[in-house]
Structure formats: structure tokens, C-alpha cells
């Protein structure tokens, strides 16, 4: 799916959409970012509660085009700015990480 297709998932809202040419094929759910860096596959969306600027650095290091911030957490301005600078899109949802993971798995036919 395209990055912008994520907002078609029920309850997902766009915080910032950057570079919609990237295709999402998989997802990784995790809040321990060192584990994300070590294990994430290519073209994955990150599902996490870690709403801060350093998550953008992790996505950039690991070539992840998008992040889903769960549990209704809000994103600070410096995170949104860093996302724009690094062509990473951010979406939020009130879902838990599990709930968001299930919805993305269905959308990706995994």
C-alpha cells in the first residue's frame, strides 16, 4: 500500500504526510527502538507509542517510511518537523499497538 493509504484505515489520522511515493509492504510493532533497529524489515511501517524526535532518527536509519503513534498520544512539534525533513509520515490512532497492528495486517493482507 501507499503511505497515504494508511489514513483510510478506520481511526487513523494524518499528522504529517511526506513522500507518498514509498510503498509499505510490512509492519513492525515495538517501543524498544534498539530492537526495532536490530530487527525491522524493509518497507515497514512502525507501530509504537514512542512519540518523540528520536523515533524519526530510528525510522530514517532503518528506512521506514511511516509511523503509527498509538494510544492517542500527540506528537511534539520537533518530531513533526524532523519527520518532514526526513520524508517520514506520521499517523495517530486511539488504538493500542495490538489494535493498530491487527488493522494494518488486514490492510496488507498479511
Amino acid at each position, binding site marked *: 500500500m501507499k503511505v497515504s493509504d494508511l489514513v483510510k484505515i478506520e481511526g487513523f489520522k494524518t499528522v504529517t504526510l511526506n513522500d507518498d511515493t514509498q510503498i509499505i509492504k510490512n509492519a513492525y510493532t515495538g*517501543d*524498544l*527502538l*534498539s*530492537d*526495532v*533497529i*536490530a530487527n525491522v524489515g524493509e518497507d515497514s511501517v512502525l507501530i509504537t507509542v*514512542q*512519540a*518523540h*524526535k*528520536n523515533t524519526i*532518527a*530510528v525510522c530514517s*536509519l532503518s528506512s521506514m517510511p511511516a509511523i503509527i503513534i498509538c494510544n492517542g498520544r500527540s506528537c*511534539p512539534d*520537533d518530531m513533526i518537523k524532523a519527520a518532514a525533513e526526513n520524508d517520514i509520515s506520521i499517523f495517530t490512532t486511539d488504538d493500542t499497538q495490538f489494535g493498530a497492528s491487527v488493522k494494518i495486517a488486514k490492510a496488507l493482507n498479511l
Partner: protein
Amino acid sequence: MKIKLDLHNHSCLSPCGSDDMLPSLIAFEAMEKGIDILALTDHNCSRNLEPFAQACEICQILPIFGMEINTIEDIHVLTLFKHLKDAQEFGFYIETLLPNINNDPKFFGNQNIVDIEGNILSTFKKSLITTCGISLDDVINECLSRDGLVIPAHIDKKANSILSNLGFLPDLEYSALEAIRPQDIKESFNKTILQGSDAHYLEHVGRRYCFLEVDEISYEGLKKGLIDGKVSYIIE
């Protein structure tokens, strides 16, 4: 001169800190172990620093007034101040950022606020074990703007450390780094790497420490010593 340094200790106020960890006893234990500069760094709270200041004066140890802040990234960072008042004010600010979750003494201890004699004055009601609503960047900015020192704690620990939680060290203005086994840290990160005891029990005070070359035993001497970086350890 080479001084003995331990900048990471928890009193009975910290969750999981033993009730025996009275600020006065921590200072006496450190004195017996020959520590020259000692910090008290309770989790997210500064309310036992006053008796710590009094005890260090008696023990003739230079006190550094600290806290171990748990950031929104779940990273533990030591914030250290020269003046008691600055540390207390920063502590009150951090308290306002704590979530409204009450401490459960069954799991995390009593979180006692005490005086120099060890009398319990009150207990801290909110849980201090949680993350407080401040980012790593903001802790660093807030602390440095108050002339504090900021040191990411136990960077080689598998939980609550900057390297385990982020996977990398963001390029920020750390005053130094702390590791449990600095001799095993492969990269220098161009920072002085300290060892601290992270004591939650009395017998652990001064269990880890390091030697630092300083011009004088003072906060300014410590600050310069961290920049100069002439640090050494006892390798067990």
C-alpha cells in the same frame, strides 16, 4: 589531584530503594569508602536532598545534588547541580510532569521523605518509577540552562538506557556518560565515561566509582575534570 567519585545513589525515597538508605547513612557509608564527591540521585524527585546536604557537610564530602530522570523515551538520565536550591526547584518542576499514578508500596517500597536523623516526615504519594512527561532533549536543555550537569545513566544496561532504548546516541550536549562496565564500551563517543554505584542498598554505596583528575574538589573542578576526561577505574 585524583579524586574518588560516585555520582549515582538512591535514597529511601526512590522506588526499590531500601528503607535503610537514609541520606545521612549514605553519606557516612561513602565517607568510610573514601568517596570525595558524592551525588544523591533519586528517581524523579529531589525531596531527600536537604538531609543529604547536611550529612555531607558533617562527613566533609562534596555533595552534588541530583536526580535520575526517567524521560518519555524511558531513558534514565542523571541531572546534577551545585546548589541544593537549584536541584530542589528542578525537582519540583519534574514532579509536575509525573503522571497521576499512586505508588504501591507492596511493589516499589515506601518512598520515604526523611530528615537527617532518619525520621520519616512523609511519603511521596505518586509513583516515582514511571516515566515523567519530559523528553531527553528537554531534560538536557532544562538542566544545562540551570548550570547543571547531565549524564545518561548506565548506557550499557539492557533496560532504561539510552543505547538500549534508542539504539544510538543522539548528538546532544551530555556532560559525560555513565556505564556499569566502562572498560567494555568499545566506542568513546568523545565523552568522559564514568562509573557509579547506582546503589539502592546501603552495602552498595560506593560499590562502583571512578577516579577523576581535577584541579580542586569543587563543582567547578568536577565540571572541568569531566571535560578534561582523565578518568580511571578499578577493573574487577
